[in-house]
């Protein structure tokens, strides 16, 4: 290949840049979600996630009520700090904000730059400095509620786990704090119903048996199809290949009816059985291809030594087929974890048995459509496990893909 590389260094650069651009294009959507999931909800709607490390300008409103008005010469004066009022402090947990501008009406919350003085229609004056300290003067004693102050402030990046805690427990920060006072800790909240943690557990509950059970059934069948001679073998293999592409949609109505008739109904048992059945063609196909490629000598010398088929299978084939078993296990795990269709049909749609994909698709996207921080955190909770499995087991996944389709 020196021919190409030597021919044009410019080409090499072009390739590097092109690949870098493609990788960035592929990463940006996921990155956006990841960054958003850690951002404060006010900041999410105030500036794009790509500006998360930069201070965000947000507008606030508060009342000038730190101190009661006191007389100073001719006029009444209120002094204090807009950033310190409880209304603002609740939104600014990190601190370190700087006022850039202030205003007197909700329509123009940033009409005057910080440090200048504004005059109201009544002749009152207000000045707010960058550090938040303000001075309000009025000709007569203010009555009723303290005057409103609007201001814009640059708030430092605020990265929190708050979205995750909210989505896991289904209780926002305030209610979590209230529960803490009652003596109900975060862990207890997480295990009570309503939060997505419940759905997370449900997904695990569906996934693990649905991954393990088909492997054993398929392994025996694959061995028979690869190494045992019997009439109808070719037909069975053809049937398995055909069933690989049967659309699941076809199976939904008749199987649900069948489950209802035999009393399983919509339940975890039903979904385990369904996933087992739907995963079998791929399992048998992958394992048979792999087992058929094992060296004939090993199996025949074992036969000559008097090993039975059962012994050959459990002592020789099964250990040797570990890579193929791992490939299928990863496939099936990813597929059952990520599945929405089967879960929607074969599990009841109540809160105690919904899996994460159903919860996100039907519940969060519908009712919480605008709460981006919650959505991002929920998505990441559901994505984290498969992505982790993907990066640690990539080798087996690739091998399985190659065995499954390049043939």
């Amino acid at each position: 290949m020196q021919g190409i590389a030597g021919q044009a260094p410019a080409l090499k650069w072009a390739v590097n840049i092109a690949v870098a651009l493609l990788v960035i294009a592929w990463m940006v959507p996921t990155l956006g979600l990841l960054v958003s999931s850690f951002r404060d909800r006010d900041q999410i709607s105030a500036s794009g996630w790509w500006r998360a490390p930069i201070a965000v300008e947000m507008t606030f409103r508060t009342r000038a009520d730190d101190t009661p008005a006191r007389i100073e010469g001719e006029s009444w004066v209120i002094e204090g700090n807009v950033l310190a009022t409880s209304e603002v402090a609740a939104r600014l947990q990190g601190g370190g904000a700087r006022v850039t501008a202030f205003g007197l009406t909700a329509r123009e919350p940033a009409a005057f730059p910080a440090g200048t003085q504004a005059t109201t229609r009544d002749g009152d004056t207000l000045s707010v400095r960058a550090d938040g300290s303000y001075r309000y003067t009025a000709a007569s004693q203010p009555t009723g509620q303290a005057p409103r102050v609007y201001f814009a402030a640059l708030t430092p990046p605020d990265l929190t786990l708050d979205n995750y805690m909210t989505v896991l427990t289904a209780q926002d920060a305030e209610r979590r704090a209230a529960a803490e006072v009652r003596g109900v800790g975060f862990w207890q909240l997480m295990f009570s119903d309503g939060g997505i943690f419940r759905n997370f557990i449900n997904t695990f509950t569906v996934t693990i048996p649905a991954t393990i059970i088909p492997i054993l059934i398929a392994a025996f069948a694959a061995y028979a199809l690869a190494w045992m001679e019997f009439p109808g073998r070719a037909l069975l293999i053809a049937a398995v290949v055909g069933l690989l592409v049967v659309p699941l949609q076809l199976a939904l109505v008749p199987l649900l009816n069948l489950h209802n008739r035999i009393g399983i109904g919509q339940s975890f048992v039903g979904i385990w059985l369904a996933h087992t059945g739907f995963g079998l063609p791929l399992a048998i196909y992958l394992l048979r291809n792999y087992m058929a490629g094992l060296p004939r000598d090993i199996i025949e010398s074992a036969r000559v030594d008097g090993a039975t088929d059962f012994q050959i299978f459990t002592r020789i084939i099964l250990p040797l087929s570990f890579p193929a078993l791992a490939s299928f296990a990863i496939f099936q795990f990813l597929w059952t974890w990520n599945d929405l269709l089967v879960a929607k049909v074969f599990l009841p749609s109540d809160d105690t048995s919904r899996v994460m994909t159903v919860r996100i698709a039907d519940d969060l996207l519908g009712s919480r459509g605008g709460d981006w921080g919650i959505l991002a955190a929920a998505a990441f909770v559901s994505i984290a496990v498969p992505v982790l499995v993907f990066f640690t087991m990539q080798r087996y996944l690739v091998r399985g893909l190659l065995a499954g389709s390049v043939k």
Partner: protein
Amino acid sequence: MSPLVQGLLTILVGVFGCVGYFYAANLLLDRVVFPARGPDQGRNINRANSVRPWLFVLPAVLALSVYLVYPVVGSLWRSLFNRAGSEFVGLGNYAALFQDSAFRLALMNNALWALVVPAVSTFLGLLIAQLTDRLAWGNIAKSLIFMPMAISFVGASLIWKFVYAGNPDIGILNAVRDTFGLAPVDPVQIPFWNNLFLMVILIWIQTGFAMVILSAALRGIPEETVEAAIIDGAGPLQLFFRIKVPQIVGTILVVWTTITILVLKVFDIVYTMTGGNFGTQILPSYMMSLMFRDDGRATAVAVVIMIVVLPVMIWNIRQARQEMR
């Protein structure tokens, strides 16, 4: 009983049940049914060996029959009955479907998906596979582009909801438009083009799959053919299109058909992004909207999907049989 405990129990029952079945059935066959002793010793060993394969495949065959073969027949049969399943209507459901404009739209959209997604995914996959082939950091790049494969369609839809969001402070697409002074748009509501914006999500997921397989195929090309072409003075483009692509056409076809089959089944993206509104309905999501309401028509849609997949299925079986020879 909590589902988690039930799950653990199921694993135990499933695993031990399977192992127990195979072990016990094997033992029964060798010791009781056809014991390898007595006058019929030789014949019994042969008989046992001819029964054994069936013992091994029996659970799989049973599961496949109940969970895949029976539903195919069951769906075909059910699609000939009315909504409640009480009255035989022949092909009435199909006739009603083809008169329904929503169904025709779904069929057209599905055809569009089946054309665009496999073509673009395969093309991009091939491009990236070739570009990263000799790159020092090629494996990292490939791994990152492959990553969306691990993400659920629901998760991917959510990720892209952020990209497409109408608020330029949330959606990066509209932020880019904003810097050029253009008004924000909602990509999933633009008639016709919204289909393409939804397809982008599936392409984003499937390109990694195409890339991994085609990259392996590119590696498998014999070096001599490439070297000979370089000696003969072929440029990089010629090398790629004249020497490499013709040698991996078979794999390209496999990738293409695999993605096509997938496209015909995916309902999650449309379901989560638009719910089938704004003219984005496709067959699988259309079927889901009928499910639980009109099983007769829902199964008829499923059968239509099956009919569309059928040619691919036959081709697959042919390929598999050729390999076995």
